[in-house]
């Protein structure tokens, strides 16, 4: 496990291959739920949301091609940020 600073914010920028609909929003919220000591913030254009809030993430209304910046603070931020980026880039929202 690579060392990571406890207070250093880690950022990942991804371009959504699919809309950020209900399912990936749920996955992000569950990720946030598993890592309560982390804060995972998403920014998409003018909108932003804490990943913990599944409804807030859905309300961003981020569509395919949107650039989303994920900022993670807290322990193991690198790993959590990677996982969040994986969810976003694998966002296979078949039916939302």
């Amino acid at each position, binding site marked *: 496990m690579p060392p990571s600073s406890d207070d250093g914010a880690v950022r990942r920028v991804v371009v959504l291959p699919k809309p950020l609909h*209900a*399912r990936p*929003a*749920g*996955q992000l*919220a*569950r990720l*946030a*739920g*598993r890592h*309560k000591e982390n804060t995972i913030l998403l920014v998409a254009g003018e909108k932003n949301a804490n990943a913990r*809030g*599944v*409804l*807030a993430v859905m*309300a961003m*209304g981020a569509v395919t091609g949107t650039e989303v910046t994920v900022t993670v603070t807290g322990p193991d931020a690198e790993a959590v940020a990677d996982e969040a980026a994986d969810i976003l880039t694998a966002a296979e929202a078949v039916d939302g």
Partner: protein
Amino acid sequence: MTEGLGLVGIVLISHSAALAEGAAELVQQISGGATVVPAGGTEDGGLGTSTDRIEAAIEDADAGSGVLLIPDLGSAVLSARAVLADLAGETTARLVDAPFVEGAVAAAVAAGSGADLDAVAAAAEEARDAAKF
């Protein structure tokens, strides 16, 4: 995040069996494995709520960490209260005032990540203030 205790269960109480079942299916999908049990319609399959169905659903949803009841409208609240009064002291079930779909989604995601009953209820209540877009 221990797996020792079961997750908080959620019961969706609707006047319509189809509405309760559909909402439960949707919410389960989004939450990735929370326990969401529908309690919709009357015993004879009509529109309305059934205390027997609600009570059975609470039993199904209870994994030892409490159960959150989310009603759709009016008499769903009355029926849920009647069941809770009936079970007084023998259940950890709690009725919450929350939007049916959004509240269920928020509660199920919280429950699925191992939150306790207070946190799951709070998630459902907060859904009232969440804008849809």
